[in-house]
């Protein structure tokens, strides 16, 4: 019994750690896509931020400067995407793909040129990383059944970006539903001409949305490089930006919907790790089959189990004045 609880808590804690970058990217996507800018470039921005934060953290020894660098780089890439999509009304998918290719190539070029470590950045000392935080009371509660292990290993013992992420989900949901900015943001993704006619700048709102998206992906990349790992390595984002995009659709472009979708994907991933080398009878379960689950699940669920996933009406459509 004790052991089962411990196993489950460990699984859930793993879920949360794996889901954190997904959630951050998905929340960024919630802002961007509710404002009408499709962002397939979450992946690239996260990767670039991972590189920037690892580089700055290793150079300065400060995780905070690393985080700042990660956010700045991701925001800069968001502005490129914004200029292409909002100001020049380009194709948003093409721009997003370009961001991804750019990030993939540039991180490698700079990593090799600066560090000569085959595309990695130097390993970080603990002082330059975000380490797990032990919340007060985790030791005194340790003896309490159920609550003890849950508190000590799931609620306590996470890194700072994880706590920040949870707070940001609340903030995202609240902003979209309760604030003036949120109302306008949803309106501009749905019916930009109504926003224009109300005397509000369509471009201004959309730029703010992509910048927020940049900030969120920046934190995601930083988390990958200096909290979850201790350096940047080649293609370390490993498609998580796309998974986040799937979670966003799965969650019907809503903050909490996307959050739970990310948790589900994170959970499947955590299970996949646990199931490595597990046998059902004589049959060894291939890890790849488990790892494919999030993708299969997305396709299956989108194909009919969750009903129609309706994007904001003008998501991905550049706004042009006049009829």
């Amino acid at each position, binding site marked *: 019994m004790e052991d089962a609880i411990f196993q489950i808590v460990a699984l859930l804690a793993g879920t949360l750690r794996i889901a954190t970058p997904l959630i951050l990217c998905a929340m960024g996507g919630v802002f961007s896509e509710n404002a009408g800018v499709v962002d397939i470039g979450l992946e690239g921005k996260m990767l670039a931020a991972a590189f920037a934060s690892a580089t700055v953290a290793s150079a300065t020894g400060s995780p905070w400067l690393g985080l700042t660098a990660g956010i700045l780089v991701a925001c800069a890439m968001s502005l490129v995407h914004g200029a292409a999509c909002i100001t020049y009304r380009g194709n948003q998918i093409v721009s997003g793909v370009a961001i991804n290719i750019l990030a993939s190539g540039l991180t490698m070029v700079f990593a090799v040129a600066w560090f000569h470590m085959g595309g990695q950045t130097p390993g970080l000392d603990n002082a330059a990383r975000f380490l797990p935080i032990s919340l007060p009371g985790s030791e005194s509660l340790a003896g309490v059944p159920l609550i003890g292990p849950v508190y000590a290993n799931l609620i306590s013992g996470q890194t700072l970006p994880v706590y920040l992420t949870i707070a940001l989900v609340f903030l995202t949901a609240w902003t979209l539903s309760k604030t003036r900015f949120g109302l306008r943001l949803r*309106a501009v993704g749905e019916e930009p001409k109504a926003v224009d006619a109300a005397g509000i700048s369509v471009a201004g709102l959309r730029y703010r949305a992509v910048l927020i998206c940049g900030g969120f992906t920046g934190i995601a990349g930083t988390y990958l490089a200096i909290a979850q790992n201790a350096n940047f390595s080649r293609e370390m984002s490993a498609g998580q930006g796309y998974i986040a995009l799937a979670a966003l659709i799965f969650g019907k472009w809503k903050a909490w919907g996307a959050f739970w979708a990310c948790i589900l994907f994170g959970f499947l991933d955590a299970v996949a790790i646990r199931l490595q080398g597990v046998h059902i009878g004589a049959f060894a379960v291939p890890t790849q089959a488990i790892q494919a689950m999030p993708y299969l699940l997305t396709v299956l669920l989108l194909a009919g189990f969750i009903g129609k996933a309706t994007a904001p009406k003008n998501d991905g459509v550049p706004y042009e004045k006049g009829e």
Partner: protein
Amino acid sequence: MTPAIELRGLEKSFGAVRANAGVDMAVPPGTIAGIVGENGAGKTTAMNVVYGMYRADAGEILIDGKAVRHDSPAEAIKHRVGMVHQHFMLVENFTVLENVVLGAEKGALLEAGLAAARTELQRLSDEYGLQVSPDARISDLPVGEQQRVEILKCLYRGARILILDEPTAVLTPQETDRLFRILKALKAQGTTVILISHKLKEIMAATDLVFVMRAGKVVAMRETPNTTREELAELMVGRKVHWQIERVKASPGAAALTVEHLSLAAGGVPLLDDVGFTLHEGEIVGIAGVSGNGQGELLEILSGILKPTGGLIRIGGREITPRHPADASEMRTLGLAHVPEDRLKYAMAGQFTAAETGMLGRQRVLPFKGPNGLIDRAAIARHCGDLMERFDVRPRRIEQLAAHFSGGNQQKLVIAREIACAPKVLLAGQPTRGVDIGAIAFIHRQLMALRDGGCAILLVSCELDEIMGLSDRILVMYGGKIVGEVAGEEADERTIGLMMANVWKGDAA
């Protein structure tokens, strides 16, 4: 008295097109002013400039005698100008309340603003008879109510000058009356109303004065009581128009098209429900109704674009059922011709030349099919030249791309093509939509001549005047059903209007 709003020499071009070529007008406060003009006369452009949607190239806007600049709608709103666009500027999945506060939220958090707006909305509703339910979603509301939301949006922002662009295009006659009562109530409170319309009858009924625009300029101003529809029409076109349709009584012959228990459902939603009627040779049957009540689907089924899910169509000795459907090309071989409602989507390809447009859909038929199965370009050119001559399509350039003709000339070409194959049945969907007044009269005369030649015509139109002027019988559709039938000569607008809203209870007397 200082005009509430005055335009001086307003100019606006889009590329090479001069939409406004020096617009001058002055509207006294507390009046309802109409702006009439043909399509492309520059009415909407001028008002979009006033509302700050477009920036003027030259000219001045004065509000209460003071020159203002409206570089964005925000400044227009600040000067208490409101505009209800023809295509509503509403967020469909928002509630009425959310739409009203959008852009006028009163603070960074929504809650207080929404509560204040709810109270204010109630007051405005009571004062002007603008009933709406604040928590209803826009997509669930009928268009008449959506329009009231648009008006409320303007009033909530304190508009003293209210511009409405073609507000009655989507309304039933009763909803139109209601709108005009609201406008009169606004006027009584001192609001200045500017009404853009191409329906002269409504302009005559609702306005105090009328500006006539032609080719980007105001060419005349009249006080409504001192003018007539005929005079306004003439001023709009710049020449005399034959207003009345001359008609002789129809002498219907045998049944040309019979429809029985026709139905169409999509995803469990009935779009057409047990529709039945007979169309005889030599008669025009008009279908009236607010758009979106199944008329479009009916035309698409009869023309072979959609497959019915139930019922029967009999034409030219063929029975068409869901199990034995006919596609559009088979319908043509059965003697049917179709002028689609959506001209640009179903009747022509913009990047095709006039010559190609003139034979679209008949490319497999002689004489267009030349030797070796290739298209005979010379025959197509001759045919198109012929059509252009007979239907006065301008300019007479068979190599010009279809997209580069004006709406009226595109439509004349399409109608000419459809009539040229001597159809037994003609489906005419909105035959004069987006067509200028001169061409409307011409198209009407052509339809009458075709009828007198023995063709059976089914006419679908949102213009009640057109239906009443042309039809020998009128069917009224509501919610995918035929809810009433009136003989053409007995038709009156009120009865049809009530049928269109499905509240007609029959003559009590």
